């Protein structure tokens, strides 16, 4: 009967390294093939202008954003390019999306004025939020904040969310 205890041994270094190198080589091969056959492949060079994004408006962290929500001092704007009710929303948020910005802003015109303090949020991608923030600023909205983390982080931090379509103004 084999020993019932979990037996520990220091493995041979050369063998472990060899196995690791083989696995890394397989991973590298698969990476290369997957990258080569992908239609819209990620370029090998990352552009600093893309990643070192200068945000057009100040950012607000989740704690502050939740405090503003509780105080009712800011209007929340959901910029995600999705259909209403598909994903959780911050209750009372306005859906003003990048690809339908003018139409959405027109529809919300009775509720959002240029002097109103707005907090923009998305799915966590700051570039998307920044793009919509820029459009707001171009239209004369000056009191814009960009929420970091996105709706998922808001939900996980305990922020209220709703699935109901009627809770989101459009």
């Amino acid at each position, binding site marked *: 009967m*084999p020993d019932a205890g979990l037996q520990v041994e220091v493995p041979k270094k050369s063998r472990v390294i060899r196995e690791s190198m083989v696995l890394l080589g397989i991973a590298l091969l698969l990476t290369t093939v997957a990258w080569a056959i992908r239609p819209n492949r990620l370029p090998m060079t990352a552009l600093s202008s893309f990643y070192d994004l200068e945000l057009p408006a100040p950012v607000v962290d989740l704690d502050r954003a939740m405090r503003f929500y509780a105080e009712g001092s800011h209007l929340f704007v959901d910029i995600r390019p999705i259909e209403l009710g598909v994903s959780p929303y911050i209750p009372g948020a306005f859906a003003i999306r990048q690809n339908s910005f003018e139409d959405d802003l027109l529809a919300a015109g009775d509720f959002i004025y240029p002097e109103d303090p707005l907090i923009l949020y998305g799915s966590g991608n700051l570039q998307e939020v920044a793009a919509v923030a820029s459009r707001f600023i171009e239209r004369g909205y000056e009191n814009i904040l960009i929420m970091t983390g996105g709706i998922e982080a808001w939900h996980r931090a305990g922020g209220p969310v709703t699935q109901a379509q009627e809770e989101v103004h459009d």
Partner: protein
Amino acid sequence: MTESAPGRLGHPLCEGIVLVCRLIVGGTLLYASLNKIAHPEAFAQVVHNYRMVPLALLHPFALLLPWVEAVVGLALILGIYRRGAALLALLLALMFTIAVSFALARHLDISCGCFHTDGGDAVGLSLLIRDIALVLVCLVPLLSRQGGWSLGHLLRRG
């Protein structure tokens, strides 16, 4: 120190423990790799948010890491090159732990990007604890003499 003879299994309980550890680590890595492989652009943004990888290496890193996770995860699940896979898994888990630690120290309010590139778990203490636990679990298949039931054992029996 010598390995167990090929084809010979140890005590079922020990083999089972090693197998469970392999499946936990392997399954976690394999699952974590899927969304990253599907969305490399989003994953590159996630990696950039940690502010640890130089811009020149960002895209190659974002492209390679998910495939390393997938290959290592699959190798652990199947029991192929167990120790090599466990070593790589350990290094990955250590890297994740260090990255989360740095993010916490710098008070970065970012998503971890562990399993989803669009949101997901925020970087926090619970995530750090989870990564440390993963490091510890990786040690079992790396250091254990028993390999746990594996594809190799099945093939040798056949």
